[in-house]
């Protein structure tokens, strides 16, 4: 086993603050939706809005970071080895087979991860972002002729926002579980905290 430095400081900060914000917004969001009462509606709505602006701010930094560092390339989807990875999670993981993907600094996500994260970044996030802003600024939106002619109602905006929230919830559950599938249950989580990932020694060509 060797260690490579795979998650940089900003990336870790971004990941964990985004994780906390998303979980908090799921909790407050479904309270606003009326699924349960926890903090009280007003508090839930206030905090949900504050968290939304924080997350938007964070995203702006993250987008900037991805493009200036070139890290956005980590999310370019690839079909190479994707079947092998799928086979690993459905069969190999139970038989003790090695993971078919080797983590490197230039390629830190396996093909399934690339696809899943790309989906989050290009579909779920924008959907939540756009519908959430429309929700927040519904009054201003409704006052425009464009919205009126498009038949855009608060109900339809809320519907999209809620649907996107359910997608995020499903992603979160899967993501949380898959984080335990490293060579030890906490290996991936440790890597996400410290930045250092344990890898098979023969693959540890690039270490810091």
């Amino acid at each position: 086993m060797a260690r490579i430095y795979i998650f940089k400081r900003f990336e870790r900060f971004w990941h964990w603050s985004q994780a906390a914000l998303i979980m908090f917004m799921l909790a407050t969001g479904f309270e606003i939706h009326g699924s349960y009462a926890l903090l009280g509606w007003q508090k839930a709505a206030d905090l949900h809005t504050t968290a939304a602006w924080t997350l938007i701010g964070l995203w702006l930094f993250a987008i900037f970071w991805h493009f200036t560092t070139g890290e956005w390339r980590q999310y370019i989807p690839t079909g190479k080895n994707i079947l092998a990875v799928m086979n690993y999670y459905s069969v190999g993981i139970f038989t003790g087979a090695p993971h078919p993907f080797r983590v490197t600094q230039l390629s830190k996500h396996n093909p399934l991860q690339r696809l899943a994260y790309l989906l989050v970044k290009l579909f779920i996030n924008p959907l939540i972002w756009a519908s959430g802003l429309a929700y927040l600024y519904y009054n201003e939106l409704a006052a425009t002729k464009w919205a009126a002619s498009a038949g855009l109602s608060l109900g339809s905006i809320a519907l999209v926002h809620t649907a996107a929230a359910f997608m995020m919830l499903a992603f979160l559950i899967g993501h949380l579980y898959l984080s335990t599938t490293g060579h030890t249950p906490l290996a991936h989580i440790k890597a996400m905290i410290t930045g250092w990932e344990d890898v098979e020694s023969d693959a540890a060509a690039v270490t810091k």
Partner: protein
Amino acid sequence: MRTGIFMAALMAAMLLAPAVDAASDPGSAKLLKSTADHSQFKALQQEFNSGPEVTKACLSCHTEASKQLHKTEHWKWEYRNAQGQLLGKKTLINNFCTTPVTNEAACNICHIGYGWKDDSFDFTSEVNVDCLVCHDSTGNYRKPAGLAGNVVTKEMEFPPGSGNIIKPINLKKIAQAVGKTSRDNCGACHFYGGGGDGVKHGDMDSSLASPDKALDVHMDALGNDFACSTCHMTQGHQVPGSRYAPTAQDKGEAHLRGKAYKTNPTTCQACHGQAPHKKIAKLNDHTDKVACQTCHIPKFARGGIATKMSWDWSTAGKMGPDGKPLTIKDAKGHPIYTAIKGDFVLGENVVPEYLWFNGTVTYTLRSDKIDKGKEPVRINHFEGSAGDGKSLIWPVKIMRGKQAFDSVNKTLIVAHLAGNDDTAYWTNFNWEKAAAVGMAAVGEPFSGKVDFVKTESTWPITHMVAPAKDALRCHDCHASGGRLEKVRGVYIPGRASDHAGWLDTTGWAIAALTLLGVLGHGLARVLASRRNK
């Protein structure tokens, strides 16, 4: 001894001090707001034997006053709405005491005139206008029931032979002390609509004569102390803000001095504008759908005086074991049954009902056919919808009743209720006789058959504005089963009935399946790793 001198000097200084102050500061002298002291007017320095004599004296200076008043609803008791319906007390039937017609001597003490006892009243008479009922500042002015709005200047027994003595009032003193209208003046009638304190409106009763801030932030006697006319800004005696011509939605700016506004000056927006919430700006986003009153009047009848919520005339006429008209009172001593009126349900601290209202109110008139198969008959109803672009969600009091109608002609009945005669219902308890006289008086046909029908009338809730801290909270409406549960056509976040059921079901199902899937996968991993060891 020395102490004595010191004390005397101190007392002298204390006595002198205010005099010195007043001399050096002329502004501290009490400034009268009016330029006229009515007690100094020759025209008012005489004994008055009747109301019209006082009015004549008033008109000797205020030459145009009666002409102005003749144009008001307060005088005419008539109003034609935009749909062309003739409204006003003179013609409408409500589901409280129903109508003043044929009961003028009793009911018309709330007309701003003297002597409207029947059809023969002269609406062109200038001296028949009652100036004092609105401008008395002594609180001693009285218009006793039964005298058609006339006042008593010599002690009299009324009704004759009853032993009930009515004390005279001193018109000279009252006339010399006239002033601007106050809550007491307007309240003398408007607090008592429907035949008693708080009966009709629910948001207006005698508790508003001297309310605290919790009851009404504007009329708060120790605070803003608004008179009715502060909002109902009257010019030329024309009082704006009638519920016959309501403003359901005001998109105008706050009224500034010097600008000519054609909009109703009584609305909240006429002072507060369109974005009154400074601390929580999100609240301003609600004003496109929700009337100010909906959140800021959380309950009505909050001043300790009950309002009537329902009135069932069909049970009237019961006699007690003593053979006399029966009266039943509740624990607080308020009648909940009287033989002359039937059963009542009273309410205090009542949560309003809510509906879309666009300012149009349609009435069921005397001549309109009603259908008992479609109970309740709506005596009036507020029109509006979520989508008409003119409606807001308003709080209302819905008065529910059961009242007499002609079961053959299918019309509401005008009944002769009050009077010392053989046909008055309150004397003889005979609906047919009372209806025959009432219907004849208004020129409507009467078949002789009386039945009872359920009715509803709707009253806007707009007074008793609570302090901000007592306004509704988000969760009062943003919840299932909240205040606005029955209001459709608007998406209220937090209200389950607005949810797309399929989305919630699918969403939670996917989340649950994902969870089950990963738990199953995890369990399989644990089992596999044990077996592999």
